[in-house]
């Protein structure tokens, strides 16, 4: 038997795993009869672009900036991003009212609001379908033993950059085959000084004896 190097094994395994996740997402339970979901997987090059875009949003959204910085670290080890998208208009005719319109017809006829992150107003059940698929993909990744996290920020960036086209609502599932779980307890992105400063600002009463005084 031919020898296959570990790096190739991991890389190819990850490719198969993303295929399995896409399949699980595709066949997950969803409302309605039609499957309108769109899915793509992207590798390191697109991820790097998405990360730079996220990082550039730093002034507007610290959350996006953090995720951008994080992805730059993430792509040093084998990883992939599954991006799921869907259109916003209702195809169900449930008339449930969750979108703020009495009927689906009114919602579909309402003026479209475009923005970088998502186009609204959107059907609640379309959103549920999209996120159920994302969760099914995440559940498959979990079963396969991959590190995994669902990112809205990277999905928003993918929509804004039109990495995934013709979608109004986007969410993404990131998976990694790193040696340690890179997705949680990401302390290395904050220095102790920065953390202390933010904590004092957000919870001023914690370190202060007399809470009546107001500074600055």
């Amino acid at each position, binding site marked *: 038997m031919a020898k296959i190097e570990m790096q190739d094994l991991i890389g190819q395994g990850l490719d198969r795993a993303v295929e399995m996740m896409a399949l699980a997402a595709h066949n997950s339970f969803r409302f309605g009869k039609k499957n309108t979901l769109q899915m793509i997987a992207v590798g390191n090059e697109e991820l790097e672009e998405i990360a730079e875009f996220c990082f550039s949003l730093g002034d507007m959204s610290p959350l996006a900036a953090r995720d951008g910085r994080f992805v730059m670290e993430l792509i040093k080890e084998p990883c992939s991003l599954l991006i799921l998208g869907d259109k916003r208009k209702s195809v169900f005719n449930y008339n449930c009212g*969750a*979108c703020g319109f009495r009927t689906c017809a009114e919602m579909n006829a309402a003026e479209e*609001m475009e*923005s970088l*992150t998502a*186009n609204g*107003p*959107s059907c*609640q059940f379309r959103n549920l379908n999209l996120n159920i698929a994302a969760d099914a993909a995440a559940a498959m990744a979990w079963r396969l033993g991959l590190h995994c996290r669902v990112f809205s920020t990277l999905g928003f960036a993918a929509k804004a950059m039109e990495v995934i086209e013709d979608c109004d609502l986007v969410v993404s599932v990131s998976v990694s085959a790193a040696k340690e779980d890179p997705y949680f307890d990401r302390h290395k992105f904050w220095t102790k000084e920065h953390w202390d400063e933010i904590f004092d600002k957000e919870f001023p009463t914690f370190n202060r004896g007399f809470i009546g005084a107001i500074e600055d």
Partner: protein
Amino acid sequence: MSMERPLKQYEQDRQEAVRIASRLLLASGTTSPRVGGVGECTFHTIDDECDVEDLCQKIESMAGENKGWKFFTRDAAILRDADAVILITSLRSLTDPSDINCNMCGKLTCEYLREEEKLPKEPGVAFTGPLCIFRANNIAYALDGVVSAARNLGIDYGVYWSAGAAAMRMGILPKDTGFALGIGISITEKSPFRDIPLKFAEINQRTMNDRIIQRLWPQFRSIYS
């Protein structure tokens, strides 16, 4: 212990399995992801058959309110065969937008969404939107947490949003609930959630029993006795 096991024991064990399963599904749903890692979903199990019947009657009574809700009678007929109903709620989507200005609701910023007037609570309106859709997406994660656990455990399930809407109307869910869904679970040999024929609300095992046995048997008995 060489005694023959009674069938009643099997029935009791089956019902206990339903109670245990609904807790396990709750566990999986609770630990599924939440947007921003902020918890807001609650799970409520209805495993008493009288309570399930109350819920089904409410679902049936709502069917006429909106012409898009004709399938509610079918949902009620299906859920009558369920052993338990798990209701999933989203507590923050109505009153507490997530402040990330994602525009999924179409209002551009969360401030505009807060100012927006909600739909009134009246017949024909299931959920008083506009809701914070980003928050309500947690329902999708919770739902798939329950569904994937049910698939792993080999428990039959069916998802019915009519049950959530009816439960909100009945006032049995927390008062800030903005969006709710019901998942029927069943531990029986035939899944009651699959193979639903046409006109199931009118023609199902219950109505067939009522019509054929209840109507024919008394006559049969008086004639042939």
